[in-house]
């Protein structure tokens, strides 16, 4: 799509590509070795004798240790690499300036409470280039608040407040970016259709929208 990829997602993608490449190399090595063995050591005519237990010789165990240490090195390096993403999973935003949205999931919709008392249903409108902190809970069963294009999610659990934060991409002018929000936890019959839209607009457009929402509140309808 033409709209920008969020920071969290791009971090995620970079790390995933790295890990996936290493994984595929490992897979290729193992499978390559296996296929080579199958071809090279396939049974030939008249050669059916049993190969004696090689493990009686010394050093086989040492080989396995070597393999293990290699994989340890790979994994540890991956862990180190994964630290660059961890901010997305941490509970406090690295950036102090942030707006807090109360996300209340229930069967089967998401309710978004804005700081100034505005409430919207299944429709989240955010200003561009802002760090947004979601305060996620549920009123009935477990749900999962999954920001698809942002590649982050958190469980909505009754009685608990789980925190998730993202940074919306910068928006200029009148163009709007729209993203999907899914529920990832089987939460009953309506699970399939439990989703919401997230629209990122420019700051002025956002302020304007918020004002209109306030108007509807004061006029008693909506909310």
């Amino acid at each position: 799509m033409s709209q920008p990829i969020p920071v969290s997602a791009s971090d995620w993608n970079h790390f995933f590509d790295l890990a996936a490449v290493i994984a595929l190399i490992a897979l290729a090595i193992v499978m390559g070795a296996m296929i080579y063995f199958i071809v090279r050591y396939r049974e030939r005519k008249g050669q059916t004798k049993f190969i004696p237990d090689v493990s009686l010789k010394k050093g086989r165990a040492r080989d396995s240790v070597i393999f293990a240490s290699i994989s340890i090195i790979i994994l540890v390096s991956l862990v180190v690499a994964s630290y660059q993403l961890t901010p997305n999973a941490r509970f406090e935003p690295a950036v102090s300036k942030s707006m807090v949205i109360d996300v209340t999931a229930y069967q089967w919709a998401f309710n978004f409470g804005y700081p100034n008392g505005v409430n919207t249903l299944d429709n989240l409108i955010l200003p561009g280039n802002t760090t947004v902190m979601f305060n996620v809970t549920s009123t009935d069963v477990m749900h999962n608040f999954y920001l698809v294009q942002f590649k982050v999610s958190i469980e909505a659990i009754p009685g608990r407040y789980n925190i998730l934060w993202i940074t919306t991409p910068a928006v200029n002018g009148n163009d709007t970016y729209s993203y999907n929000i899914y529920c990832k936890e089987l939460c009953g019959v309506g699970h399939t259709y439990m989703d919401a839209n997230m629209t990122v607009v420019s700051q002025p457009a956002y302020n304007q929208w918020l004002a209109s929402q306030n108007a509807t509140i004061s006029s008693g309808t909506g909310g």
Partner: protein
Amino acid sequence: MYVGIWLGLVVATVAEVVTRSLAGAASLLALIILLISSGKAITIAMYYQHLRYEDKRLAILPIAAVVGVIFLAVAAAMTMSMGM
């Protein structure tokens, strides 16, 4: 001898009941009481279930089980400390 152990256990039980009526920090009393009852449990296992006279290797089984329970408890404690 077993009668002696039995007496000891009974006394320990009474001691527990007395302990809870003492004045003092509830958590501390709770700790004391639990220690006493663990002692009682171990005594029963050691003598009535005569683990003490069995080969030491048999003790692996119950100990492993208790360790498993402790695992579970630790994990529960970890998740307690979150969110709320």
